[in-house]
């Protein structure tokens, strides 16, 4: 990949994604951390576009920036504000060390392997992904739905499903109306 545009885009996005990931670490309020996380997801989606993976980029936007972002926000607001801090442990130093070691190892391997390079510039990926899902990965495609239903049922069971113990006042008059009609 060469040319002024893609190269400068790569460096901008690299700085943006690494910077926002670091800000997730550094942010004092957890809501700020979530906002930086969403920025990280978006910049990574742009990075996927740079790698001509347009469908994966859109999937990243839709699932991570849209859905996971909302999910994390909801999970935070379900816990009270006194929990909304970063709360670092004594593992900050060792954690940094571990992260640096892993990253360093991967970088070392990346530079010391002779990759068989090619330039797979996909004009459009959706059709190819769809055919791959229909033929070669048909079974994982179905298993994904089983995984999703398992996650859904599991999470509903965990958070309580029907047996949610809310204080009745918070539910509001409309909720009581619905319950009686049922």
């Amino acid at each position, binding site marked *: 990949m060469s040319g002024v545009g893609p190269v400068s885009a790569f460096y901008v996005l690299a700085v943006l994604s690494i910077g926002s990931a670091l800000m997730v670490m550094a942010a004092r309020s957890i809501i700020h951390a979530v906002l930086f996380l969403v920025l990280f997801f978006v910049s990574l989606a742009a990075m996927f576009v740079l790698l001509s993976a347009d*469908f994966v980029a859109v999937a990243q936007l*839709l699932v991570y920036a849209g*859905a996971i972002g*909302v999910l994390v926000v909801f999970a935070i*607001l379900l816990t009270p*504000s006194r929990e909304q801090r970063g709360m670092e442990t004594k593992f900050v130093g060792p954690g940094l060390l571990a992260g640096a070691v892993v990253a360093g190892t991967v970088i070392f391997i990346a530079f010391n392997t002779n990759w068989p390079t090619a330039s797979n510039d996909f004009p459009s990926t959706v059709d190819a992904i769809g055919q791959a899902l229909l033929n070669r990965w048909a079974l994982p495609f*179905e298993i994904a*739905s089983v995984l999703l239903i398992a996650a*859904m049922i599991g999470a509903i069971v965990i958070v309580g499903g029907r047996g949610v113990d809310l204080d009745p006042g918070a539910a509001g008059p409309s*909720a009581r109306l619905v319950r009686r009609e049922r």
Partner: protein
Amino acid sequence: MLGDWGHLGFLILVGIALPGTALVVSVLLGLFKIRPKLPNSVKLATYECGVETEGPSHVQFHVGYYVFALLFVVFDIESIFLYPWAVAYRHEAIYGLVEAVIFIGVLVLGLAYAWKKQALVWR
């Protein structure tokens, strides 16, 4: 194509510049004393219909929100799988139909479970 996506980058710049200009003009009006700037503690207080604010503003929400977000995530991912399927459908019509019926069927079972468990009821 990559170039078209780059044009969207220009659009992001415009998207920042457009409201940015409006805000800058508004701030400049303030600097030239055309726009009033007389804050006092009552104006800057949280507005809750005139009643004084009580307790923290970042209140805790109930779990119903989470259940909906959860269902949303699951069906969002379903759509991620179904779009490539829809585009590639022409090549493998009958086989694709069977696969999709199974795929959607399993998730409809999940929806039915949530419905049955009253997880779809707002409370």
